């Protein structure tokens, strides 16, 4: 069970990132929970300064860009 967190205040890129993350997790067939972190204060607690960002199990894996599905797969393995 992995927790995927999408950090971002709700711009178009955040939605794209969420789609990519979901697609990657489904392709790998792992159980996951997708959370959207939209509260600025909480985003800052991750140490992220440029949104959107992706965190897996609380660890920031990418920020300021939308990684491809393939890249996210590698992050999830």
């Amino acid at each position: 069970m992995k927790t995927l967190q999408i950090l971002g205040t709700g711009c178009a890129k955040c939605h794209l990132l969420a789609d990519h993350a979901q697609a990657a997790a489904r392709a790998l067939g792992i159980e996951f929970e997708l959370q959207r972190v939209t509260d600025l204060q909480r985003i800052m607690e991750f140490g992220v300064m440029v949104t959107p960002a992706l965190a897996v199990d609380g660890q920031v894996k990418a920020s300021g860009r939308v990684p491809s599905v393939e890249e996210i797969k590698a992050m999830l393995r």
Partner: protein
Amino acid sequence: MLRDWKNLSLLGALLAVVVTVVASHWVFSSTDALRPGALHLFACCPSPKGTTPADRATAALDYFIFHVPKMLLLLGLVVFGVGILRSFFTPERTRKILAGRRQFVGNVLGALLGVATPFCSCSAVPLFIGFVSAGVPLGVTFSFLITAPMVNEVALVLLLGMFGWKVAGLYLGTGLLIAIVSGIIIGRFKMESHVQPWVHKVQAAAGDAGAAITTRQRLRYGWEAVRDIVGRVWPVVLVGIAVGAVIHGYVPANAMAWIMGAKTWWGVPLSVLVGIPMYSNPAGIVPVVSALLDKGAALGSVLAFMMAVIGLSLPEIIILQRVLRPRLIALFVGIVAGGILLVGYLFNLTL
């Protein structure tokens, strides 16, 4: 198999860049060759001599057809370069460089880094908090926040392509100067208490500086940036060029000399006032600016207009309200607008 394909596409991207460089060079060098009017349709763009509707339409169409490929080529090229540059200057690294810096040196560094560390306006707030909570002085943070949108790298290169290095240099130099001076002034005012209280409570995590990345990854970031930004921005560019084309074809020559010229005292403030609420991508505003200059607008007024459009925008001000109290926002807008006005007058008087 997949790896091979990736390498291949990367090679393709590189090839595309080389072709773009060659092609844009050809486009630029052929501009002057064609200007006398050998090949009329692409020979951009003598002002309409006749006043018949057909002449005007031709002039507008010429302008449009000539500028679309040129601007799109340039844009792709710039964005690719910036994407690679961005991989060197992550916000985390910038913050590390700026933390604890003194006034002046910090302001200069902040302004310079603002050019190299591009971010979209939706990230202005998290960046602001990240900087302030890491101990970057408020004035230095502002120097950074002001240059980042105002001295826009896309606008810079487009100016270079359309008007040459002098105008581009003026834009870069004065933009940096405004940011440095504004940052110093804001630092002097000791406005720390005018940051919304919750910002100081945030314990921003340090954030990781990012693992070392390979050259190939940098190239891929560049390519991603091209796909992302050009894919998003091209309609704006088309609209910008279309507006420029209409101005070029239908606005009588020298009409702008009256409104945005150097002769009247109100040309510059009017340009700034019109520019602030407008929010446009820099790639969209440069063609408009070019057409305005054609019609006799003074360089100072036009630069002021462009800086106001790019550097100060209503959406950004609204976003900043979440972290800054109104007085600090007013000071920020006032100082930057004042700086832009000064630049406008300066160029109108001296050029």
